[in-house]
C-alpha cells in the first residue's frame, strides 16, 4: 500500500457528474487522502492499469462505460480484482445494489454520501486491504510467485495432479561442521545470503522452491505451471548456482572465511504435484520416484566427488546440449537395479 501518512491512501473517484466528483474528492482530501478522479469507466480503467491505487469510489450511472462494466472488467483482471471498490451511487432499487456486491464491490454508499459514513467505510476497506496485502506479502515470502499465483487463480485445495517435470535437490557440503565453528548469527546470515542467491537462480529459470530444510532445498521445474523444457531449465539453474557460489566464495576467501561448496542432484519424469498437509497448514510439494531419485543423486555427489549429478532421463532430454561424464551404473538406495548417473561438466552453457 502506498501510504503517504498513517491511514492515508491513494484513492480514485469515478463519477461522470462534476459536482459529485468535486465534492467527493474534497471530502476525501479533507480526510487526508490523496485523490485522483476520472469522469467515466473507460478513463478509470486506463488510470487503474497505469497507476497504483488503494481504493476506488465508483459511480454506477455513467456514459461510455458504466460502473457495472468497470466492476466486470476488474474481476477479470488479476492485477485489479483485489482492489477494493466502494460504490457511491443513487441507484434506484435494491437489485442494483445486490448486483454491485455480486460483481465484487466491497461496499455501497448512497448519494448524497454522508461524510461520517464515508470515513468509516473507507477506513474499514483500507484496513481489509492492508491485511490482504500483508497476507500476500507473507505468501510471497514463504511460497513463491508461481505457487501464490496458482493459489490465487485456482484456489486452495488439498490433493495433487500428475505432472511432468524435473526435480532438483541441493545442499551445502560440510555444513554441520561449519555451523559448529562459527557464531549462530553468522550462520543465519550465511544461510540468508545463500538462499537469496539460490532462489534468484532458481526463480530466473522458472523453478519453484518447494522445500527448505537447514542448508538443503528442493525445487521443481514444470509445476505448478508447465515448462516446455524443464530438464534444460533445471540443469541451467544448477550451473548458474555453481557459478554464483564461485563468485560468492571469492568474497569469502577475501574475507578470510572458508569456502562454501554445494552439491546438486537432478532427476526428471512424472510426479505428483499438489498441496499436501491439512487445511490449516499445507505446502506445495512433489512426490514420487523422481523426487526420491533426485534426493539420492544429491546425496551421491559427496561419494562421487562431483558437483552436479543428473539421471538418465534428464540426460536424454538434453541430448548433446550438455556435456557430461558417465559415472556408470550406481546402486541407489530405494532402486532395485543400479541406475546410470551422469556428472554435468561445470562452466558450460546449456
Amino acid at each position, binding site marked *: 500500500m502506498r501510504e503517504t501518512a498513517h491511514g492515508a491512501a491513494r484513492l480514485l473517484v469515478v463519477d*461522470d*457528474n*462534476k*459536482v*459529485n466528483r*468535486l*465534492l467527493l474528492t*474534497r*471530502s476525501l482530501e*479533507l480526510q487526508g487522502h490523496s485523490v485522483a478522479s476520472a469522469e467515466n469507466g473507460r478513463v478509470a480503467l486506463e488510470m487503474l492499469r497505469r497507476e497504483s491505487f488503494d481504493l476506488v469510489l465508483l459511480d454506477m*450511472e*455513467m*456514459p461510455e462505460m458504466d460502473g457495472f462494466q468497470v466492476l466486470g472488467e476488474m474481476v477479470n483482471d488479476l492485477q485489479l480484482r483485489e482492489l477494493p471498490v466502494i460504490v457511491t451511487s*443513487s441507484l*434506484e432499487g435494491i437489485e442494483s445494489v445486490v448486483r454491485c456486491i455480486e460483481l465484487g464491490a466491497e461496499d455501497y454508499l448512497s*448519494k*448524497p454520501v454522508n*461524510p461520517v459514513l464515508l470515513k468509516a467505510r473507507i477506513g474499514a476497506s483500507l484496513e481489509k486491504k492492508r491485511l490482504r496485502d500483508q497476507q500476500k506479502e507473507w505468501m510471497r515470502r514463504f511460497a513463491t510467485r508461481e505457487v501464490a499465483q496458482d493459489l490465487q487463480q485456482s484456489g486452495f485445495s488439498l490433493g495433487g495432479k500428475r505432472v511432468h517435470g524435473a526435480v532438483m535437490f541441493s545442499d551445502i557440503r560440510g555444513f554441520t561442521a561449519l555451523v559448529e565453528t562459527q557464531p549462530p548469527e553468522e550462520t543465519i546470515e550465511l544461510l540468508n545470503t545463500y538462499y537469496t542467491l539460490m532462489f534468484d537462480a532458481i526463480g530466473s529459470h522458472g523453478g519453484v522452491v518447494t522445500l527448505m530444510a537447514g542448508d538443503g532445498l528442493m525445487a521443481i521445474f514444470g509445476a505448478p505451471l508447465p515448462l516446455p523444457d524443464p530438464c534444460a531449465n533445471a540443469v541451467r539453474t544448477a550451473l548458474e548456482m555453481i557459478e554464483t557460489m564461485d563468485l560468492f566464495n571469492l568474497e569469502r576467501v577475501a574475507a578470510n572465511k572458508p569456502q562454501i561448496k554445494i552439491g546438486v542432484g537432478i532427476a526428471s519424469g512424472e510426479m505428483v504435484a499438489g498441496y499436501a498437509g491439512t487445511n490449516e497448514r499445507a505446502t506445495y510439494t512433489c512426490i514420487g520416484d523422481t523426487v526420491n531419485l533426485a534426493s539420492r543423486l544429491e546425496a551421491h555427489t559427496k561419494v562421487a566427488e562431483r558437483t552436479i549429478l543428473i539421471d538418465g532421463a534428464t540426460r536424454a532430454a538434453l541430448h548433446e546440449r550438455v556435456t557430461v561424464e558417465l559415472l556408470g551404473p550406481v546402486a541407489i538406495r530405494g532402486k532395485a537395479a543400479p541406475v546410470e548417473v551422469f556428472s554435468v561438466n561445470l562452466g558450460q552453457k546449456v
Partner: protein
Amino acid sequence: MTDEMTEPAIDLATFDELKETAGADFIMELVDTFLAEAPLMLDGLRSAFAARDADVFRRTAHSLKSNSNTFGAHALGAMARELELTGIAPVAEANGKPLESLAQEYARVAAALTDLRGA
C-alpha cells in the same frame, strides 16, 4: 405543484451541513459548478426527450436528482427522480409539460443558491 412552490427551494439544514463538511470556500466553487452544469442537464433532458433517447434521459435525470439532493434542493430532486423512474412516456403524454415545471423549479433553486452563495 402548490406544495413545491411553498416549500423552500433549498433546505437550509442540508445546505449548512454540506458547507460545514466541505468548507465555506469550497462550497462556492461547488455551487458555481452546479449553476454551470445544471442548465446543460436541463438541455440534455430536452434533447433526449426530443430524440426519444431513453438511456440518456434516465441518466441525465439521475445526475440532476443526485446533485439536487446534495444541495438540499429536495423538490427539484424529487421531480428529477420521477423523470428517472418513469422515463419519457409520461412526459410525452403531458406534451413535455413536466420538463417545463422542472425548469421553473430549477430557476427557483438557482436564485436561492445564488443568494446563499453571496451570504
